[in-house]
């Protein structure tokens, strides 16, 4: 969730784009710049090494023996076979919980963002402050209290319980993100629709939401990632295998003394696929939003 804010700031600003396109001016500079690229690749290689190691180990059946080679010279998918066999149900659970969280988050966050951006009533600024503060409250605090609440409501070990908890964690950021975009919509657009006889809710659905598509999709992607990566709520609010997200599947591997890392790393790779896709998709959406802003 925190990650997302920085991504927004880094890619969202039109300034950054303008500067980047100004980059290499003459051919002469390029020769001086290539050593920088090499250095950049070295830095990145160090930072990305664990990701490489994850993939490398997932393709080696004997990961765990002292002879894990640095390159998967003889790749095997045995690790993935074991992982899929043991974790496919958990992957489905994660998918259900994440999609449910995205839907519930958007249904609540998008109207709230619009209300906060357009109506600017007394007290609303206070609510935005509250939203900022909520992002800083440790999740263990929430989990502590939700455990007792969910016990009495019968929501432990349920999809609904996890979806509610994950939504709570994602809503503040989604509201703040979408609100920032909706505040830039010219009020005239909505007023024109109101003059034409639409009420505020119709105007919201038929005008505001389509215009805000990029912000909403971005919020959806980040919400998905947040719910997908959730570990603490899964750990505290579920205890049976029937509703067990993939993060908890990985954790359960780690709890025991790991003998074969192949299946563990294969599971980690599968659990990382959405993040990798987000890195591609979100950039597309965020730069599209920035370009759209520049054209106006």
């Amino acid at each position: 969730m925190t990650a997302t804010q920085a991504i927004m700031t880094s890619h969202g600003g039109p300034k950054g784009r303008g500067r980047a396109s100004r980059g290499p001016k003459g051919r002469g500079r390029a020769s001086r710049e290539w050593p920088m690229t090499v250095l950049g690749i070295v830095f990145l290689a160090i930072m990305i090494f664990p990701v490489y190691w994850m993939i490398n180990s997932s393709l080696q059946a004997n990961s765990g023996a002292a002879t894990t080679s640095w390159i998967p010279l003889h790749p095997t998918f045995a690790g993935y076979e074991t992982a899929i066999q043991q974790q496919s149900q958990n992957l489905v659970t994660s998918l259900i919980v994440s999609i449910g969280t995205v839907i519930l988050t958007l249904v609540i966050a998008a109207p709230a963002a619009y209300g906060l951006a357009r109506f600017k009533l007394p007290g609303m600024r206070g609510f935005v402050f509250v939203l900022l503060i909520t992002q800083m409250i440790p999740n263990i605090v929430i989990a502590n209290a939700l455990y007792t609440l969910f016990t009495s409501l019968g929501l432990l070990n349920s999809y609904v319980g996890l979806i509610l908890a994950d939504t709570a964690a994602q809503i503040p950021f989604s509201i703040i993100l979408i609100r920032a975009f909706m505040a830039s919509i010219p009020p005239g657009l909505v007023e024109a629709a109101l003059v034409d006889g639409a009420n505020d809710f119709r105007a919201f659905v038929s005008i505001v939401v389509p215009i805000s598509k990029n912000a909403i999709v971005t919020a959806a992607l980040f919400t998905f990632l947040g719910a997908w990566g959730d570990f603490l709520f899964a750990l505290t609010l579920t205890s049976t295998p029937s509703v067990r997200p993939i993060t908890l599947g990985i954790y359960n591997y780690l709890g025991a003394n790991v003998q074969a890392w192949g299946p563990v790393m294969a599971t980690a790779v599968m659990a990382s696929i959405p993040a990798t896709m987000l890195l591609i998709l979100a950039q597309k959406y965020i730069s599209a939003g920035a370009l759209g802003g520049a054209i106006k």
Partner: protein
Amino acid sequence: MAAVRADSAGGAERATLGTPDSRRRRRYSHDLIGWMFVAPAILFVLVFFGYPIVKNLTMSLQNYSTTTFFTGFAPWVGFSNYVTIFADPIFITSVINTALFTIGSIIFQFVIGLGLALFFKRHFPLSGFLRSLLLLPWLLPLIASAAVWKWILDQGSGALNQFLGIFGIAPVPWLVSPTVALISVIGVNIWLGIPFNTTILYSGLQAVPEELYEAASLDGAVGWKSFWYITWPSIRSVVGVVVVLGVVYTLKVIDIILGLTGGGPANSTQTLATLAYQKSFVQFLFGQGAAVSNLLIVVSLIFALAYLRITRKEVDE
């Protein structure tokens, strides 16, 4: 907020009755519609943030045991949970570990992050591409990162000890020695935080007008001088945000520690967050867990308020 709501409700009533003052009527119904958009979110925040905070306060004054959840009976015990916690040597260890973990993580994340941000600011070929790939470690599920690091830091056959072995260095017990484990966990957390720091600081550097550097270079300020007199003063507020947010988020860290060491060995990596988890969900002493949680909230809120002070201008806009 309650007052505002009551106002709007009254406005709606008057609106249906048809007050002659139509402008005022329209304003009230306008207000009501505004609050209707926001109401579900307010309700959600009340239930999932307001309630837990209040509940944690009351829980910390009650004696929860394993049977509480069957009988529903948790007697009031005043401040005895806090007394127990403060007298617990593990609590003292956790406070020290939390401080070391937070300070160690923040300093190195920030310095390395700033270094990388300055590096990427130079816009060499592929810099944008490399910078976006840098985000990957930070987007992965934390527990997946914890898993791969646990494997890399494995004493017997982990990649790090294999690598060090090339230089004849004896295997280091990264995660199983009480003296080394905290350093290892801090190291992994630094790795996790570098993309965040780099990205925010990079965006801060982008906002410094190029003209400032050009003007300064005419006056002879280049290299370190231009960093010290131009860059640093210009990004100081961004630095404040990064550091304060970093502290708040580091205090919350729990996935990484539970995944890597579970707080062990011998509580050497136990922090306030993991201790709160242990008390509540391992020992089922929810009263003590809530007491630790409340201390964690107080510390977080101090830094959260500092953050809001720094960003108040942004919110006001």
